[in-house]
C-alpha cells in the first residue's frame, strides 16, 4: 500500500470566497513588506543577531494556517516571521522583538529566531534545526490528551513546520515514529525551498526527489503542494487538516517553495544562479494571486495599490512602535522569567505587554 494519497487532494475543495482570498493576498503582502523593512532595519543595525527572512515563501504560512482552526497549535523553525504574522501576531510585537525592546512578543529576550505568541497558539520559532519537531509531537500529544483524558471534547491538529534541512536531523525521525505509534495528530509541513544554507537538497538528503518515501517509512500519508500558489497550498492543507482532525493521526506534507533572499543577512549565495532565483520570482505567489483576483474581477489595480499602501502603513507603524518601545532594563528584566516562582536572585515572571490585548485588538499607535 502506498501511503501517498493523491485521491484525497484532487477532490474539489469548497469554493473560497473572493473576500477570503483578498485576505490571503493582504496577509502575504504584509509579510513581504514586513520582511523588506526587516532587512532594511537589519542593515541599519536596529536588528541584530541572526535574521532569516521569508520572502518568496509567504504562500506556505498563509495557505497552511488558513486551513487550521485558531486554536490548533502551530510551531516552526527560526525562519518564523511569516508564520507568526500569518497566525495573527501583530507586526508591531514581532518588530519590537527584533529591535530587542520590552514591547516585543518576548520582551526582547528571544529575538528574530524565537518569536512566540501564546494568544494565537503559536508555540514558537525554534532555532536549533529540527528541535521543534519532537515539540510538535508533544503539542499533538497534549491536544489528544486534553480531548480524551481531560474530556475537552475538541479534536485539534498541530502544524509543525520545518525546513528541508531538518529532514536530516535525527530528532525528526524519532518524532515521526512516535507520532505514528502513539497516533498523534501532528502534521509535519516541510517547506522545501531546495536549500539548507548552501546545501541543495540533492546534496544533503537521500531520496530528495521523492520525499514521500520519508513519510512511507513511518506509515504516514504524504501530500504535496505548490508553495508558489496560496490557493493550491490551502486546497491541499484543508483536506489534510480536516482528515487528520477527524482521524487523529499524523501526516507529512511537502510544500515546494523558494526563498528569494540569502539564507541569512550574510550569505554570498554562490551556490545558486541568479537565473534560478529569477525563475522562481517569475511565479511569485503574491503576483499570482493578485492577477487571479484581477482576472476574476474581484480586484483592480487601484485596489491592489490600496492594499499595498495599507500594509506599508501598518509596517511603518510597527517600526515606529518598535522604536518607541523602551529598552529592557537589566536591573528588572535580566533575572525575570527565568523561573515561575522567584527564589534567590530570580525575579518573577510575567506575560509580555502583547498579551494584554486580544489578537487583532491593539491600541492605536502613538
Amino acid at each position, binding site marked *: 500500500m502506498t501511503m501517498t494519497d493523491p485521491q484525497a487532494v484532487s477532490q474539489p475543495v469548497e469554493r473560497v470566497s473572493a473576500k477570503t482570498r483578498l485576505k490571503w493576498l493582504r496577509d502575504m503582502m504584509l509579510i513581504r513588506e514586513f520582511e523588506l523593512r526587516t532587512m532594511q532595519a537589519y542593515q541599519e543595525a536596529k536588528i*541584530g543577531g541572526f535574521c532569516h527572512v521569508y520572502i518568496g515563501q509567504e504562500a506556505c504560512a498563509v495557505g497552511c494556517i488558513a486551513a487550521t482552526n485558531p486554536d490548533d497549535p502551530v510551531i516552526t523553525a527560526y525562519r518564523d516571521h511569516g508564520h507568526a504574522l500569518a497566525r495573527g501576531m501583530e507586526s508591531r510585537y514581532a518588530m519590537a522583538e527584533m529591535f530587542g525592546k520590552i514591547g516585543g512578543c518576548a520582551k526582547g529576550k528571544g529575538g528574530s529566531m524565537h518569536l512566540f505568541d501564546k494568544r494565537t497558539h503559536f508555540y514558537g520559532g525554534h532555532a536549533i534545526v529540527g528541535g521543534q519537531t519532537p515539540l510538535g509531537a508533544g503539542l499533538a500529544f497534549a491536544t489528544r490528551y486534553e480531548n480524551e483524558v481531560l474530556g475537552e471534547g475538541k479534536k485539534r491538529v498541530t502544524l509543525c513546520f520545518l525546513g528541508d534541512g531538518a529532514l536530516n536531523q*535525527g530528532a525528526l525521525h524519532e518524532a515521526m515514529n512516535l507520532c505514528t505509534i502513539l497516533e498523534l495528530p501532528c502534521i509535519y509541513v516541510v517547506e522545501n525551498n531546495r536549500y539548507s544554507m548552501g*546545501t541543495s537538497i540533492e*546534496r544533503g538528503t537521500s531520496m530528495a526527489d521523492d520525499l514521500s518515501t520519508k513519510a512511507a517509512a513511518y506509515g504516514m500519508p504524504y501530500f504535496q503542494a505548490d508553495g508558489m500558489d496560496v490557493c493550491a497550498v490551502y486546497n491541499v492543507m484543508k483536506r489534510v487538516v480536516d482528515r487528520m482532525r477527524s482521524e487523529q493521526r499524523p501526516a507529512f506534507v511537502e510544500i515546494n517553495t523558494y526563498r528569494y533572499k540569502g539564507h541569512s543577512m550574510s550569505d554570498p549565495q554562490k551556490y545558486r544562479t541568479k537565473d534560478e532565483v529569477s525563475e522562481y520570482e517569475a511565479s511569485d505567489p503574491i503576483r499570482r494571486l493578485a492577477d487571479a483576483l484581477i482576472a476574476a474581477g474581484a480586484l483592480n489595480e487601484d485596489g491592489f495599490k490600496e492594499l499595498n499602501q495599507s500594509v506599508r502603513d501598518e509596517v511603518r507603524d510597527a517600526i515606529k512602535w518598535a522604536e518607541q518601545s523602551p529598552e529592557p532594563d537589566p536591573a528588572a528584566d535580566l533575572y525575570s522569567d*527565568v523561573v515561575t516562582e522567584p527564589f534567590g536572585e530570580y525575579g518573577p515572571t510575567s506575560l509580555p505587554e502583547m498579551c494584554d490585548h486580544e489578537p487583532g485588538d491593539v491600541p492605536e499607535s502613538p
Partner: protein
Amino acid sequence: MGAAVATRQIQFREALREAMTEEMRRDKRVFLMGEEVAQYQGAYKVSQGMLDEFGEKRVIDVPISENGFAGLGIGAAMMGLRPIIEFMSWSFSLVAADQILNNAPKMLYMSGGQFGCPIVFRGNDGAGGQLGSTHSWAVEGLFANVPGLRIVIPSTPYDAKGLLKTAIRCNDPVFFLESERMLGNKGPVPEEEYLIPFGQADIKRAGGDCTLVSFGRPVHFCLEAAEKLAEEGIECEVIDGRTIRPLDMDTIIESIRKTNYCVVVDQSWPFGSVASEVATQIYERAMDHLDNRVYRVCSDDVPAPYSKTLEQAMLPNPGKIIKAVKQAMYLE
C-alpha cells in the same frame, strides 16, 4: 610571549586554517568534516580554499545531522583516522551530546585501552552576537566536568594555530573552542612551524598587584581592564589559561604567591563553572598565599538574552572585572 619574533599578522580564522592545512599535508589520516565546510568554503570561512587543495574525499560537506556526523567521526577515529569535526557552533553540539560525551571521551576507558579516539571537535563558542539563548552556549563549564577529554580555548591567532596543531596530533578527543567574535582578529603568527603544548598557561601581561585568570575571549576583557587599572597604578597579571583540561594551576599559583589577590574571569555560567574549579584548586593549593577570597566574574546566571542591552549586562566585561579587582584588593 612566544610570538615576539613574528612580524606577519594574520586573522584568527587564517591561523586555524593554516593549522588544519599543515596537519592535513603532514598526515593523510587527517580529514575535515562539517556543515558547509567544503563547497560553501566554511560558514565562517575558516576552511576557505581547503576543498581545492585536498579534494572532496578529505574536506567533506555533511547535512545538518550533528549526532550522525559527530558519531561518524568517532567511529572513524576508533579505526585510527584523525577526524576534525567542525560544529558551526558549539551550541549545535548539544544535538550530538551522546556521541561527544558518552562515546568519544570514554571509548579508551570502556575498551580497557584498546580503542582510542584521536578526534578534534571544533567550532564557535560563547555569546556576544545577540543570537539568543539557543545559539549562545558557552560549553566550557558544561563539558569540563567530563573526564577523558581535552578542552582548548585560545584567545589569539598565535595560540589558536599552535594549539590546534597539537590538538590534531593528540591521541585523545579534543574539544577546541573558538569564538565567532574573534575570527576576524589579527595577530602575529610566525611563518615557521610551532606547536603549543596543552596545559601551559600564558602570561599575557605581567603585573604584581592582582592575578587575573581567564580563558578564551574574556582574556581580552581582562587585558582591557588591566590597561585601565594600570592608569590608577594597579598592575594586574593576566594569565591566559589556554587549555581548561589540562589546567595549568602551577602558573596561576606562582602568580598568586606574588600578588596575593586573584580574580577569575570566565564566560560560563557561575554555578559549577570553570571559574569555580579554578577557585577551588587555588583554595586547595594556595590558601596561605591569599589575602582575600578569590573573586569570580562569570556570565550572569540566566539564559542568554537576545536584546543587546540585556546581553551586554549578562556577559563579563572590563567594567565588571575592574570592579572585582578593586573589591578583591579591598579598594572598594
